[in-house]
């Protein structure tokens, strides 16, 4: 072999044996096939839906989420334009006046986020099918409990989706193309079946499973499902609702820090220590110091300088405020008015130094006023375009503690709490009773209401069978659960959502009771059809 031939063949062989391996090299992500191999990995996967639900469906971190759709379209809260701020393409104005269209990101994103929650659940359930519990040091019961927990979470996401959008696809697997929407009654039946099957395998709530879906959370889901069943399916389920509530009220579901019960004050269940509050039935757990994650209510709900009220270190965007007449729904002696909302001059934490404004009241003391109008320009018109920096009462339900506190901003996000069960049961009783109160219903509501008044005021503030009308029940429910993401659902159930007037909002069409299917989904899935009226 001469040199030429040698070199030629060397070159050719270089080409032939040359690397053609094009497999991806992964360094910073976990590839699915290598996961679910230990108890720790299975747990890490099973917990994923919780952080998603916490971070993007209810946490008010500036996300267009379920919470925004269920509150900013209703009668208590609004996100008005404040001068040059917060026009945002008219998004919040349209939510308030119910003039939304299927193109809105404010509608598309909650759909996407809730179904992403469903997707995470389906992913866990599908991956766990292949896991042999013995091989990873788990018992079959432990693994079944995880599956049960994830199924209830999936049902919960479907419940919220069905509430918003009406007929929706039921998704139990990943990657099945173009599934059509199921009628609402089928979705309700699916949720009921899933929760009822799973609830028996779930543990009771105790201090070892805080933040997890347990019997307490599952029965709360059922209570909500049955309470709204008439709205969603046309079929009344009052007795089922009462039965689900009784499971919780009778102490059969456990509780945080003992057996679940009402707090006797208005702050413990929302505080940085609310993981010890027996009122909480289902929450998303947070610990800012340990995880650097927190329940972000500041973005949407805080004034720019609101952190100074608490000696906190997170900024707000001066977004959501309380509508003037919703604020007036609270009597002045109602402690919930002064505890859960802020009005008037504001001071830096622990001082009498006024917090100053940054926009219309730049350099001047910040004084929140009830009205939504341009006082700085001497105007008296009050509507969604006329807000300014200090308009409307503000959020104070969750309070983060001081920056220097050890449990600073470790408040858990409460999704279901005991008070709601009292309200659900009372409402079911009243509806069953021809929309009339009964002593039992009055007793239930008064139990939750009593802590909102000083003892000396209570005698005049307690409800009686005569005073607890359905309208009053809705109003009281609003006062108790203001800011908690439940208002639109309640208004729809009381036929006040499309039919009602509040502040500058006029009645709209009954088709507005459900949102349109997002335009992106109508385009992507040929088997989805737009809701009536859109």
């Amino acid at each position, binding site marked *: 072999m001469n040199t030429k031939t040698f*070199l030629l063949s060397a*070159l050719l062989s*270089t*080409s032939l044996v*040359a*690397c*053609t391996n*094009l*497999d*991806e090299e*992964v*360094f910073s*992500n*976990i590839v699915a096939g290598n996961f679910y191999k230990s108890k*720790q990995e299975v*747990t*890490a*996967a099973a*917990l*994923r839906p*919780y*952080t*998603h639900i916490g971070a993007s469906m209810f946490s008010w971190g500036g996300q267009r989420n379920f919470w925004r759709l269920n509150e900013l379209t209703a009668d208590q809260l609004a996100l008005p334009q404040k*001068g*040059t701020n917060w*026009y945002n393409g008219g998004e919040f104005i349209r939510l308030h006046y119910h*003039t939304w269209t299927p*193109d*809105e990101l404010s509608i598309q994103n909650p759909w996407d986020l809730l*179904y992403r929650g469903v*997707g*995470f659940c389906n*992913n866990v359930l599908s991956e766990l099918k292949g896991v042999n519990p013995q091989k990873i040091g788990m018992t079959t019961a432990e693994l079944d409990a995880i599956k049960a927990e994830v199924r209830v979470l999936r049902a919960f996401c479907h419940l919220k989706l069905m509430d918003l959008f009406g007929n929706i*696809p039921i998704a139990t*697997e*990943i*990657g099945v193309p173009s*599934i059509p929407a199921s009628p609402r009654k089928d979705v309700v039946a699916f949720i009921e079946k899933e929760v009822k099957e799973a609830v028996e395998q779930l543990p009771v709530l105790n201090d*070892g499973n*805080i*933040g*997890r879906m347990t019997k307490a959370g599952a029965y709360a889901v059922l209570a909500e499902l049955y309470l709204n069943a008439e709205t969603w399916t046309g079929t009344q389920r009052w007795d089922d609702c009462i039965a689900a509530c009784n499971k919780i009220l009778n102490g059969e579901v456990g509780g945080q820090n003992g057996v679940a019960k009402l707090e006797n004050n208005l702050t413990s269940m929302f505080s940085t220590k609310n993981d010890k509050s027996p009122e909480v039935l289902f929450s998303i757990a947070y610990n800012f*110091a*340990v*995880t650097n*994650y927190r329940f972000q209510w500041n973005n949407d709900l805080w004034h720019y*300088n609101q952190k100074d009220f608490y000696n906190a*270190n997170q*900024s707000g965007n*001066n977004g959501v405020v309380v509508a003037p007449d919703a604020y007036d729904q609270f009597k002045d002696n109602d402690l919930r008015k002064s505890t859960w909302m802020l009005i008037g001059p504001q001071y830096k934490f622990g001082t009498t130094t006024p917090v100053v404004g940054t*926009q*219309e009241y*730049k350099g001047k003391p910040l004084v929140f006023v009830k009205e939504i109008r341009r006082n700085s*320009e001497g105007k008296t018109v009050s*509507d*969604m*375009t006329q807000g300014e920096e200090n308009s409307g009462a503000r959020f104070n339900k969750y309070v983060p503690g001081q920056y220097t506190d050890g449990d600073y901003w470790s408040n858990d996000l409460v999704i279901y709490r005991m008070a709601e069960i009292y309200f659900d049961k009372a409402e079911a009783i009243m509806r069953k009773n021809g929309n009339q109160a009964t002593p039992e219903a009055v007793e239930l509501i008064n139990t939750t209401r009593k802590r909102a008044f000083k003892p000396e005021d209570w005698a005049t503030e307690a409800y009686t069978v005569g005073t607890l009308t359905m309208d009053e029940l809705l109003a009281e429910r609003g006062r108790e659960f203001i800011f908690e993401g439940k208002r639109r659902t309640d208004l729809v159930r009381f036929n006040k959502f499309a039919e009602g007037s509040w502040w500058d909002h006029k009645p709209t069409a009954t088709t507005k009771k459900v949102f349109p299917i997002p335009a*992106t989904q109508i*385009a*992507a899935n040929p088997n989805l059809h737009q809701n009536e009226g859109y």
Partner: protein
Amino acid sequence: MHLFVSAQENNALKLKISVKENSSLTDLLQQVEHQTSYRFLYDPSELKKNCKLPIAGSYTFTLSQLLSNLGLSYLVDGVQVILKPAVVNKDPGVLSDTLLPLQLLNEVFVIGYGTIQSNYVSSSISKINSQQFHKGSVISPLEMIRGKVAGLSITRVGGNNNPNQVSTVQLRGVTTLSSYDASNQPLIVIDGVPGASLDLIQQDDISSFDVLKDGAAAAIYGTRASPGVILITTKKGRPDSTLLEYSSYISTDQLRKRPEVLSAEDYRRRMLDPHNSRRGIMIDYGATEDYYSQLVNKQNLTHYHYLSASGGTEKNLYRAALYYNSRQGIAKENGNNQYGGRLGLQQKNKDNKIGLQINLAANIKEINLNGGNLEDFEQALQQNPTQPVKDADGEYFYTSGTGYYNPIARLNQEQRSATIQTLAGDVKGTYQLLPHLEAAVTGAFFKRNRTEHNYISKNAKNSIDNYKGGGFEEQSSLIDQTQTLEATLNYKLEKDKQYLNAITGYAYQRNVSTSFSIGNSGFMGDGLPWINIGSGTDLALGKGDMKSNKTANKLVAFFGRLNYVYADKYIAAVTLRKEGSSRFGTNHKWGMFPAFSFAWNISNESFIQEFSFIDVLKIRAGYGITGNQAIPEYQSLITLGTGGAYLNNGIWFQTYGPNKNPNVDLRWEKKKELNWGLDFVLFSNKLSGNLDIYNRTTIDLLANYSTQVPTLITPTIYTNVGSIKNKGVELTLHFNAVRKPDFSWNIDFIGSAQRNKLTKLSDDLFKATYFQYGSLPAPGSLGYAIRAEEGEALGSFYGKRFAGFTNDGKWLFYKADGSKGTAAEMSTNDLTYIGNGIPKYMLSLGSEWKYKQWEFRLFFRSKLKYQILNLPNLYYANKKMLGNNILSAAYSKYQSLNDDPQYSDYYLEKGDFLKLDNVTCAYNFRTRNKLIRAVKCYCSIDNIATLTSYSGLDPETEDTGLTTGIDTRGGYPPTRTITIGVNLSF
């Protein structure tokens, strides 16, 4: 493309040549080198065969006379003269005094894995040689050819000359929806190494740019070739020519225009105006400040020094260069210093069969990123002019604004700097296997390490707002590495009337990117800079920040090309590249990129000879498919990402879940392009030019599309859907208006027209609605300005239509049904297409005069038929923004408006402009000095004047990519650059 030798400097200069009995060609040429600025490049062995020296004696004649008499023709490349044996060989004994016609020479085009002479080219390629380069201060070497290649857009947004910002580059319009990794920017190839960094190249390193424009030309680089390919050839050493060169310039930027805001006096007067509804919230702090001017560094100075040594023999050639460049922008704390070098060696063995080429390049760039940011200039515009920069105690003055801060304080209380170290090397070995067959193997490495350090001092507003006054320090690093291996076999045969060149090869490239960052706050110490990240307390409190990430991708290709020419008339080229990318789905990793092109050199046909005014006439047709893989890694894999920690029985677990929808069918985006071309040279080289017409369709557009949720997990998926069509015409003309011994005048015209349309955005599986770009920020968050939808042109503005003002100055817009309504009454159905921000026409005109030793150049550039969204006026020429400062236009042009900012066609303005881009004047000193061979001095001014009806600072908005035509709210100050430079050779 210039097929002919142009009339060059010193053409008429009388040279004194003395020929002795034993003189060699080299002796003669050295005499010319000493008397002119020319440097000769030739292969002595080749020339010896043809060259006859004159008989001994002393002569006086011009360069062209000498070379004609020697039987040589020449091609001028800057001051470098490439000598070739001419067809005609004169009798060496007779010296003619008449100016002989210059010989036609063919330029050599670089086409990827080889070269080809220009008359054999059958696709659309533009070559720009160093003598055509823009002279003066450039930030990126590509700016030297701005406006000189038809269809190539090189844009500095707003006419900025920010030394830390690179130009955006795009060829023949936007062809993809993917904006990942600058996927609209052409592939850069330096000396044959694809994917190279422009950081490694200085303006004096470059000998030429070859731009592969159409699909047929670019397909040899299959994968990343859809946006076009720019091949950069560096200068090399020349045999028998030992050369030392030094080039240097100093330049300074002058403020050309600034935003007109209310002065402190105006502001106070407005406070007294009873009709001003905002007067109640305006505050007079008592000072008189001009914040904008305090951000400007009027004394900015840039200087550049480049030293090179080159030379060698027939067997080995070298060129080594070192440089230092310090750049300062018009903004304070805004500049960089860079130094580095480039070394090129070429060596052949005894029998010239084995060759080795080695290139090494290094660059160290220290960047001050603190100043020059757009946010500071936007703040300067908004600062209350009565508010002092510092209070009476000498502390920076802060007010309680949201989205409002004292930019002078920020500039002085924060630090942001980066160092980029780039190192690259390549080695190419060649072996002549057979007389016509050469094998080559190239190996190359590239490493770029960018480290950044940021510090916010304790008393800065940012620190007080976000870190409880504890300061904040951040360190980060990003390392990019590339390894390349290529092997080729090249067969070349010229026989009778036939020319054949076949090449086949293999290419492998692996890119690895590693990033790391840490951040901490809660410091006791303070200082500028503070570098002691561990001393902060917040990391321990869970408030610090730590990240690292690593990704890798691979490309593997097999390719081949065949060029065939018959009788200098019929030309054909066929290319095929099969390429695989690790980024795609298992069954779709490989793509096939074929191309073919044909040309007919009509001027070489006998029937054309009677048309004596035609020198060259060639028609071309080419078709080629190229690819795009510009998407993130791992999109076809099911990967799990972190989801935040969650509680499990008292312990916080990091959670994991799928972080995207995998797409196992992810495949190449492909662009199919048909190109028709015409090359011509007429009237004895008086007029030459090219015309190209193209039609390109990109299919299987890669993008992150909305998809079905349920049952997929995330609402988007990277997939291939839809198509974009681009059509265009490009014309290049070169006119030798005057060509006399001591005076010449050349005119260059470049023009292009371009249209695009997003023709499809759906397929059987996916139906996308639309994409939105250009989010209009707070205050107000007015939504997206641009929408891309099936059937519409890309770059289209989408929004409300202005219908007038109410009597009290409130906005009225048209609703879809034609009625009018207020902003609050507008729904998404009332929005429509209202304009387009991509220029339809790009034109440039260069004119060059040479008189004796003088050179004078003018260069005009123009972009036509597009709209600009005047964002500064939309937000800040509005009385409702008072409290903060506003643009004076609020009280002139926008006097009737009395409402909060709204986005509509009201703020769309015609963008058309004509810029006098550059004026250069140069003088070539005649030197008889033995030491110095040539001296050239020049003065150059950039961005001299702009003719436009646009009311903003500069009409040159972004015109590449998908977010186009939106003026920046806080633009970098537009400047004029004045440069004085010198080139010396020894």
